[in-house]
């Protein structure tokens, strides 16, 4: 399949993971089998790592709490940051983890049922790990945009109904 078509498939799935191979085939003028094979290949090559729902927790009955935690760590002689990062990613509370440039080393996204749960994770688990030098916790107050999607925007079409 052509490079642009592959890019088209990937872009479409990033925007909407539920786009079917049949839909994409119609858009590309290709067969469903070709598109399905391409998607399978993207998965096999670990380019597509998963398909997830984008949830706006504000509309949930039980609102989980999210925090961004800046962590400074002591890199290890052999493993650098990787070993401690792997260790931290094992905690189910940690939903994302990145190595950062700048004033701190690791950025964690942590989820908990409420403020206390996150706070106790930080104080009893995270901060006590050997190699963790300091933590800075920032609680998320409001989500405006996630994964490229504006969460507050209402869709509207102001165009005239017929335009020459």
């Amino acid at each position, binding site marked *: 399949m052509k490079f642009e078509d592959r890019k088209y498939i990937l872009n479409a799935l990033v925007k909407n993971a539920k786009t079917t191979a049949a839909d994409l085939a*119609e*858009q590309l003028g290709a067969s469903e089998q070709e598109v399905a094979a391409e998607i399978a290949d993207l998965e096999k090559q670990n380019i597509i790592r998963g398909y997830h729902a984008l949830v706006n927790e504000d509309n949930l009955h039980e609102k989980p709490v999210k925090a961004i935690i800046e962590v400074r760590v002591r890199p290890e002689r052999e493993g650098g940051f990787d070993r401690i990062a792997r260790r931290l990613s094992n905690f189910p509370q940690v939903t994302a983890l990145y190595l950062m440039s700048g004033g701190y080393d690791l950025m964690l996204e942590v989820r908990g049922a409420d403020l206390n749960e996150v706070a106790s994770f930080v104080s009893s688990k995270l901060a006590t790990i050997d190699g963790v030098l300091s933590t800075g916790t920032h609680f998320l107050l409001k989500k405006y945009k996630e994964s490229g999607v504006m969460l507050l925007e209402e869709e509207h*079409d102001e*165009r*005239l109904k*017929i*335009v*020459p």
Partner: protein
Amino acid sequence: MSDSRSCRDFVAPHIAVLPKSGIRYFFDLVNTMSGVISLGIGEPDFVSPWSVCEGTVYSLERGRTHYTSNLGLLSLRKAICDYVAEEFGVRYAPENECLVTVGVSEAFDLAIRAITSPGDEIIYHEPCYVSYATEIRMSHGVPVPVCTYEKNLFALDPADLEKAVTPRTRAIILNFPCNPTGAVLTDEQMRDIAKIAVKYDLAVIADHIYSELHYDDRPMHTVAALPGMRERTIFLHGFSKAFAMTGFRIGYACGPNSIVDAMMKIHQYAMLCAPTTAQYGAEEALKSARPDMQRMVAEYKGRRNVIVSRFNEMGLSCFNPQGAFYVFPNVTSTGLSSQDFAVKLLQSKRVAVVPGNAFGACGEGYVRCSYATSLEDIRTAMDRIAEFLDELKTEKA
């Protein structure tokens, strides 16, 4: 209150006879209805790229709210001329061969007024954009339509064009990719048309508003780049379609100094300059919004593939247009006229399409469907049109 019959009629006869746009009646009808999916909109559904909006606001924050040169901001003209040279292969001088206008509509109006003397014949291809014939009449010129046909993929056949040339012919209008058909010209057709222009010493008005929206894998091309053509071509373009900036109303004209200068005179007295704020937005578009444009073009292409295959599946023959964001399916198999098809479809299925004859007599038998709307709406509209066709068949049986 005065009775209109007793009012003196001040309207000039040549304006009084102009028809209102054929779309008007349909527009009024659509507006009385709710829940309509419109495939009748000739403008992008995308909002203008954020970098453009942001750059425009920044110009206001800096207090850039004064008149610009009549020709437009020099920095914008430089950016336009670089863009045209890079993408179309023709170099114009920003100082005196480029004029920024209020949309391509104004640029087109200026071009016609600058070159037309009373009685001059201007040739254009039909079906075409709704303003061509009336603009020519307003300049006391004679509109000479040349039909294009589905069998030629709605390209202008150079032989048909040559037959329309008379000693009074002044200019040819070319609009490819074409509104309403989505047709493009092959390199060969363009070369042959250029030869005719040179042979009969005609001006060419090249309306490039849809140029970026093309789906064949070749670079953009213009008749102005062909031998003997630069000196006779008025190259018109703008930001509305490719950059999704219709409301900014910024277009431009490039051409030989003598013509641009004449157009500038009319523009100077009628308009002074294009809106300054919008000019800054246009400059930002060329600077930063090309990736946005490419993303939109890729999306239009996907939609086109869907809409063309759906029409052909449901038995309305629809050629695969290589440009713009329109398809022009043939509805003659239903036995309905364009107008009846569009009205019935609207009333029974709440899908708005534009009757082909709104774009000239030879658009009869076709309807224009714009795919500048979401895939979801396109799919729903196509399902409804398929139902409509089934119901027509049962009615007949």
